């Protein structure tokens, strides 16, 4: 007699086709086959999409590099053929920009189509008892499948991250900056790898909790969009920005520099109010004071600039210098990976508490 929970082996080998252990039955290769068989269409879809994106972006990067070389590795002059090509609606730059925006939402697709179905589909089709009542333990079944699918996700997003990073660098070259902003920032520095793996784990955890495909997928969408908006809003000040007063006109070398992220800067002059304008002593200047010192500032920007220069006005500038980009990437990647780790912990707890009964 033996405890039921130990599933002891008590096989005889009278049958000629009996498979016993030794890697033939119930081993890693079996779970590899099962994972492939259950998720093959999602995996094929992911592979095709990743290959298409990688190839397309590599081609666009080569094209943009070529343009950059044609402009002698500097910003192309405004009226040049190359500048026109870069600003064309269906030119390489615009398409590359659109592709980077699409890649920014790839983790959402990964969560929905690779993460959520792992457990939610088993619950929905009532096959969880079938899967978990075999010799392979539920924990081994789950973590092996997670590892296999997670490895594929990591490999594909790593390849994409590499190409995206290269493309963003080239785009920054031809457009004189922007690496710290928008999709060019979010898709560079291996961030797609971190977000892809993280949201795969989040998708699995939400599928396990919701036990239904659609509610879990909807939650992934809402969660990802929310997290993306939160990141966009919060990331510029994750590290205290560099700040200083900048006189008019800014002396050479005092600007934030190429690829920096401007957090606060520039003056706003509106009806009866002036924002971010200071006198030479650093005191804020209001609309009345500006009107008194520069009565003709409304005539045009040149008049305003000459007045601001003459009276030594200043503006306050806050920015993140470009050399902080790797640090920011690291912080965001760590944030995403922490989210993924929390999701895995929640998944472990959820699975432990999942009741299994035959009825």
């Amino acid at each position: 007699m033996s405890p039921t929970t130990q599933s002891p082996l008590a096989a005889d080998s009278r049958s000629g086709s009996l498979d016993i252990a030794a890697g033939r039955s119930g081993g890693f290769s079996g779970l590899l086959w099962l994972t492939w068989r259950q998720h093959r269409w999602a995996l094929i879809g992911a592979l095709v999409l990743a290959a298409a994106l990688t190839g397309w972006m590599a081609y666009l990067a080569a094209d943009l590099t070529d343009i950059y070389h044609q402009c002698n590795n500097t910003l192309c002059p405004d009226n040049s053929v190359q500048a026109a090509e870069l600003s064309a609606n269906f030119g390489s730059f615009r398409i590359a920009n659109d592709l980077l925006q699409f890649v920014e939402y790839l983790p959402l697709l990964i969560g929905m189509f690779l993460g959520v179905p792992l457990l939610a589909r088993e619950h929905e089709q009532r096959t969880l008892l079938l899967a978990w009542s075999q010799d392979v333990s539920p924990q081994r079944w789950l973590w092996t499948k997670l590892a296999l699918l997670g490895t594929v996700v990591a490999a594909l997003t790593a390849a994409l991250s590499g190409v995206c990073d290269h493309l963003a660098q080239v785009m920054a070259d031809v457009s004189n900056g922007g690496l710290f902003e928008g999709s060019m920032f979010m898709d560079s520095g291996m961030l797609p790898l971190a977000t892809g793996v993280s949201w795969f784990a989040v998708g699995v955890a939400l599928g396990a909790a919701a036990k239904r495909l659609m509610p879990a997928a909807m939650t992934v969408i809402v969660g990802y969009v929310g997290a993306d908006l939160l990141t966009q809003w919060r990331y510029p000040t994750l590290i205290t920005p560099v700040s200083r007063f900048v006189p008019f006109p800014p002396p050479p070398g005092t600007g934030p520099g190429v690829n920096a992220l401007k957090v606060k800067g520039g003056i706003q002059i509106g009806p009866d109010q002036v924002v971010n304008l200071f006198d030479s002593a650093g005191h804020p200047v209001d609309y009345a004071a500006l009107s008194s010192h520069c009565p003709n500032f409304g005539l045009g920007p040149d008049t305003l600039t000459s007045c601001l220069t003459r009276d030594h006005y200043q503006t306050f500038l806050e920015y993140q210098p470009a050399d902080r980009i790797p640090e920011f990437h690291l912080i965001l990647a760590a944030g995403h990976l922490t989210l993924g780790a929390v999701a895995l912990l929640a998944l472990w707890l959820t699975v432990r508490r999942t009741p299994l009964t035959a009825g």
Partner: protein
Amino acid sequence: MSDDSIAVEAVDVSKRYRQVWALRECSFQLPANRIIALVGANGAGKSTLMSIISGLLPATGGSVRAAGRVAILAQDKPLYRDFSVADMLRFGRSTNRVWDQQRALSWLARFEVPLDRPCGRLSGGQRAQVALAVTLGTRPRLLLLDEPLSNLDPVARTEVTGELMAEAADSDMTVMLSTHIVAELSGVSDHLLLLASGRPVLTGDVDDLLAAHTRLSGPRADRPPSPGTVVASQHTDRQSTFIVRTPCTAPATPVVAPGWSSQPLSLEDLVFTYLKSSGTAHRSAEAAA
């Protein structure tokens, strides 16, 4: 019973879902190499007991031990709908340390189930055969089948029960099947475990149990005319009927007083009698509480 002759031994097994007790202090021994019927009304705790025996569900209290490999087939006989039948067999081989492909194939061949057809396009009966083939392919020593015949038509039921009995006889396999339809068990099971309100109320070999019970009918009386435990009684103004469990020492045919007649019970009658009496006792206990 020696260890080899016991398929399942339960000692004070209990299971509670929040405030509701599904099983309470169940203790029993079930013999090996038999077909055991687990009978009870809906909600009696049959599925819970099977899940605990299979190791899927932890018991709240007590312990269960089973001999050898345990396989369980759930009531809805789940399959991956997009898997072909051959894929399902490969699933069995991929997720079990022991797999008997020949046994699974021969079971499917007996019921002429096509191997290349997706499970989602099989009939209900064929799906049940595939689920059974996967379960049998794991070569369990103890096969737990929860309502195995519920989706099958009468012809398929007869075929499946017949083949299951043959499989059990050919291999050292104990089959435990649960049902609330007692008529399905006639001629199939040779051991009975009757659950009511989460407790075992009757267990033993079917033949022994039937031999030990008798229905006595006669003139109005407070007690039956022969020795034994009254399981149930029914009275009218002029007549009394007793279902009596005779002691082991009593003769097979009880001595019946003048005016009294004795009739054997069918398995169905026996089960209904116990279910009814345990239900009455349960309600009385609840009312007293």
